[in-house]
């Protein structure tokens, strides 16, 4: 029915490269399991925001993280353990879902990517999940927080490696409430992410025995929060929760610090990254509590990796960099175990795998919804930074089971 040859130049180019690859492959006597690879090489596609708001969080430095993974992998198993070449291709989706979508197709089809990594921005993340399902190729999301990736939009080829909004709520809301922050007012940006965060936080606060007095919706985006902060102070809550992200969060915190609530009420933040603290300055955030998926100065193992990362990039890694490293490393090992880069077989070896590495502690790739569960951390912003990027004090490790709960019931793996 379907004739590939019509695709003219595409098909010719592909055949030519296959032929070339076959010749080259025959030359090397011990090219590991590469005979079972589709094109004698493993191609990892990194698709993220390299020019917009997530540039510092993951961006171009994620490529360095992936290259570190390849380096370590080769050092551990030999240069040609899985393939003669392991290639990284990158693209900048500019936070536009349509570009993410086209680039993902192009990576899978033309650049022969075996896997796509990262993809922050939830609309872009979900668009790529659809492509992974269409093309039957692997996709590990790191940068996006939407639970839809392991819920309604979950599929056999999509994994969610680092965090999601529900985890943040359980970590921050649950822990703070149990430690005495029992009465809350929440301010959330009025769009899907904010509404979800508000719902999960309210659920976790009440679940832990606390109460939420008021949930206040604020427009998104906004740069004037004075009125919301006044409202949030009504009824003398112990904790004010801000569910804002990025620039809005910085606006909120700056204005919170100028309000009478500063010093009287604890500020808890739904979604915050180390890059936010870096941009606003540690003193502005001092004392703020939030959930982090990973922190570079948590223990020796993390620190050692962060030092290597710093050598190459001159900056400290965010959780996303570590997660990209971990995902790339585990993917390569899975290909090696499966002896092929055939996506279905690799998925088979990944599912249910238990992992402990620099990023994942007590990690497990949950078979039911492809969430990668692992320990997360309740962090408190230090009042001053001993060195640049040393901003967080880990208050508590939240065990994987507590942070991730049950598998997402909205997910039906098809």
């Amino acid at each position: 029915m379907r004739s590939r040859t019509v695709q003219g130049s595409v098909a010719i180019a592909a055949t030519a490269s296959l032929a070339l690859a076959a010749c080259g492959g025959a030359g090397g006597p011990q090219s590991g399991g590469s005979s079972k690879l589709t094109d004698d090489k493993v191609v990892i596609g990194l698709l993220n925001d390299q020019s917009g708001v997530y540039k510092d969080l993951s961006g171009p430095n994620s490529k360095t993280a992936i290259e570190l993974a390849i380096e370590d992998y080769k050092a551990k198993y030999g240069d040609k353990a899985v393939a003669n070449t392991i290639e990284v291709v990158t693209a900048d989706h500019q936070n536009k879902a349509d570009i993410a979508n086209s680039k993902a197709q192009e990576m899978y089809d033309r650049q022969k990517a075996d896997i796509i990594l990262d993809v922050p921005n939830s609309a872009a993340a979900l668009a790529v999940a659809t492509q992974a399902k269409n093309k039957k190729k692997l996709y590990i999301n790191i940068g996006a927080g939407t639970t839809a990736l392991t819920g309604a939009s979950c599929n056999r080829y999509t994994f969610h490696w680092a965090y999601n909004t529900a985890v943040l709520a359980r970590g921050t809301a649950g822990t703070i409430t149990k430690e005495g922050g029992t009465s809350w007012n929440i301010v959330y940006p009025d769009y899907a992410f904010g509404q979800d965060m508000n719902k999960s936080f309210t659920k976790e606060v009440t679940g832990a025995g606390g109460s939420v007095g008021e949930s206040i919706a604020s427009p998104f985006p906004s740069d004037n929060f004075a009125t919301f902060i006044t409202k949030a102070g009504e009824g003398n809550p112990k904790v004010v929760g801000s569910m804002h992200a990025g620039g809005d969060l910085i606006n909120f915190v700056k204005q919170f610090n100028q309000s009478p609530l500063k010093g009287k009420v604890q500020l808890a933040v739904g979604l915050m990254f180390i890059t936010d603290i870096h941009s606003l300055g540690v003193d502005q955030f001092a004392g703020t509590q939030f959930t982090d998926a990973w922190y570079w100065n948590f223990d020796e193992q993390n620190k050692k990796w962060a030092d290597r990362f710093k050598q190459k990039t001159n900056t400290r890694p965010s959780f996303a960099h570590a997660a990209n490293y971990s995902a790339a490393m585990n993917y390569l090992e899975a290909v090696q175990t499966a002896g092929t880069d055939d996506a279905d077989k690799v998925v088979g070896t990944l599912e249910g795998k238990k992992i402990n590495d620099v990023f994942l502690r007590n990690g497990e790739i949950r078979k039911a919804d492809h969430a990668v569960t692992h320990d997360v951390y309740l962090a408190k912003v230090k009042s001053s930074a001993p060195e640049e990027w040393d901003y967080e004090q880990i208050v508590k490790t939240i065990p994987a089971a507590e942070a991730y709960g049950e598998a997402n019931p909205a997910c039906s793996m098809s």
Partner: protein
Amino acid sequence: MSEFIQYTLQGLAAGGFYALSALGLAVIFGVLGVVNFSHGACYMLGAVISAVLLAELHVGFWVALLVVPILMYGFGVLMERLLVRWLLALDPLYNFLLTFGLTLILVEAVKQRYGVSGLPYEIPAGLGGQVTIGSVNLSVYAIFACVFSVVVCVGVGLALTRTRIGMIVRAATEAPERTRALGINVGRWVTPVFGFGIALAGLAGVLAAPTRAITAEMGSNFIIVLFAVVVIGGLGSILGAVVAGFLVGLVEAYGIAYAPTYAQIVIFVLMALVVLVRPSGLFGREEIA
């Protein structure tokens, strides 16, 4: 009641800021007939420059308040001489489009140089903390920003009505042909006025630095709100821009307080209503519309 007063004060504080930001836009449109899309980017530049001055040269807020507008004036003069000038004779749409392209360049350039996560800035000493009267409280900085904005707006207003230069500029705005017929070289004032408008945008940026996230994108949505402000006030009307600034600040604050879900859209509803009922805006002259 105290709640209402609280929201009113907050609305006025925000309004003062809107008024100052829109002022430059109105001045430029009034005299040159240019809708400066890059006003938001210039506002951003003002904030970024103050952050850079603080971080790299340890130049504080008060000095920045003086230095940044001067720098931005220079930038405005360059912009007018090199770019805007060549399109003044054409349909205003062309300068609208030119400044739109310029915005893309400025935003991207700042992103390249200073990253995307934003720059830190602190509340200037002496302006931290709050003032509380009864159950009403406002941050000292918000009061300062509002008072400062009003002073600048009044100053610009006085300069326009009480000085010779102001008179010429006003005459040039209202009746360019007749002004010229009277032997006044209107063209001479075009460049300084444009620079002045850009300086005002930069000043608004400095004022925003202590309370807002300083990122390359900070002007991108702000400019849309500013457009709404000047359209409500009447394009080209300086008084209109100031009044509409306060009006929008108040409407927004009440919207947030009493109808938070719709807070985002009230400004645009207000704008659509004003334009439908009074096409040239509250204080605009009919022929511009």
